[in-house]
């Protein structure tokens, strides 16, 4: 039996790695992938907590989150593809027409 805290700390680490990824990568797709990592970290927490509480709800949540993530990815990649068609770049450092 592995203690709950192991999972939760692992999940926190993954979440943080995701956050760092969002902050340091310049490619929009990479940022998006880092966000997926964050969502997976949360999923891990859900399942671990659910198991600890003797509740399957956690797993149900993960199911929903996956659906949401899939939808987000579909739309997000569409936006990124569309952007790269117009702008020839998906480097977020070059995407700043609007500022101040």
């Amino acid at each position, binding site marked *: 039996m592995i203690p709950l805290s192991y999972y939760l700390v692992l999940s926190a680490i993954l*979440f943080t790695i*995701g956050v760092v990824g*969002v902050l340091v990568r310049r490619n*929009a797709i990479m*940022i*998006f992938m880092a*966000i997926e990592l*964050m*969502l997976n*970290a*949360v999923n891990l*927490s*859900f399942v671990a*907590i*659910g198991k*600890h*509480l003797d*509740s399957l*709800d*956690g797993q149900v*949540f993960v199911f*929903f*989150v996956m659906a*949401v993530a899939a*939808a*987000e990815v579909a*739309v*997000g990649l*569409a*936006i*990124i593809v*569309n*952007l790269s068609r*117009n*702008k020839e770049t998906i480097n*977020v450092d070059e*995407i*700043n*027409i*609007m*500022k101040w």
Partner: protein
Amino acid sequence: MDLVIPKIDALSLCPELVLSITAMLVLLVTVYLPKGRKDPAAYVGLLGIFIALMSLTLLWGKPRYAFNNMIMVDNFSIFFNMVILVTAALSILMSITYLKEEGMSHGEFYALILFSAVGMMFMTAGANLITIFLGLETMSISLYVLAGFLRDSNRSNESALKYLLLGAFSSAFLLYGIAFIYGATGTTDLKGISEFLSRATYMKDPMLLAGMGLLLVGFGFKIATVPFHMWTPDVYEGAPTSVTAFMSVGVKAAVFAAFVRVFSHALWDLQPDWNQLLWILAVLTMTLGNVIAIAQTNIKRMLAYSSIAHAGYIMMGMIASNELGTSSILFYMLAYAFTNLGAFGVVILFGRKGEGNLDIEDYSGMGFKYPVLGLLMAVFLFSLAGIPPTAGFVGKFYIFSAAVKAGYIWLAIIGVMNSLVSVYYYLRVTVMMYMKDPVKDLEGLHWSPSMIVALIIAVAGTLLIGIFPSPYLDLAKQSVLHLM
């Protein structure tokens, strides 16, 4: 193991169902419409919204849970749903000509608006954090697309990308918060959470508090509170103007509804903990929004900062956290809906294809060239600034008096100071319209019937609520009766 399917309470879901079906109908209809003449799709959508509005009245006054406490249909959600539906209707009315002018007249636009509205309505009614989350995502995903709807416009693309990345980022925080709350209470059901908290002997479970904080991040992002507000100006500026109008009101209404439900209902026992924090956030939000708005030159951007400031005012109602405060949020939202939609309507009508006529400078002399349009804009701006006898004034008065009554005098004073500051930049537009000579050719305004209808509704709402507010105040008051 038997599966006991819960009672399918279709009546409770009636408005959402009507709207979803309408949205799909719009998708079907648009296929058969000739290119570039997709207006009927919009009218189908409007019809659906109208039916949904009617069906809302069926549910009024009969609060109930449905689908295993997944949603709560009460006057509170119905009031917000009304605001959302009106917002959607006005946005569609304003979009018809606008999209044609931009060469993007597609039925999918209206379907996405409706889908987004459905998401919003699930948020207002959500009695479970998961329902709220899914509603929020439905709303947001449609909005990401809508923000980037002008596919060939770099600004629109950029706005969609920024909204998407940051929206997904903040959703992850929100979700993490839900996970923590789930861990700390064992449920995501709002009623269950509040029962758990009222029973709990310990109060300072750090996991619960952190979960609450992360929820605050998620909600705060959507309603644009400082420091989660930074996306707002960029996204509002780049998105198609009618989408900006829809976002600025609809998202705020839906998220505030969920916000109030979660914080003032489920997390009520933690009120001392979150109240102080909200105080700080509200002050930061309104101050920063107003101060930065002063230096703006683009009217959409200015209205974006102004909407940040308004989020700050509305938060005052939450901080007051009494019946008066909550009903003042509802009332303010209603007033804000008409006012802000009206202002954006004028911006749409006055705008040109692409980035035309969006600078505040461009409004020079507009009041003389188009006296009626100028007067309308002046009314909307006065209302945003909170100058009587408009809806915005009564709303502010109501919110401030709620804060004063709850003992937050300093908050109210800061609010008053802020609204005095805000008058400066709202009035600047009026000054441009009436006290400057035109800097460029103002010919070529396309008065379309749908836009005229939208503007008339908006201005009628703004003035009616301002001059005869009591029926609406009663409505708002009745809406919060069953909440607490």
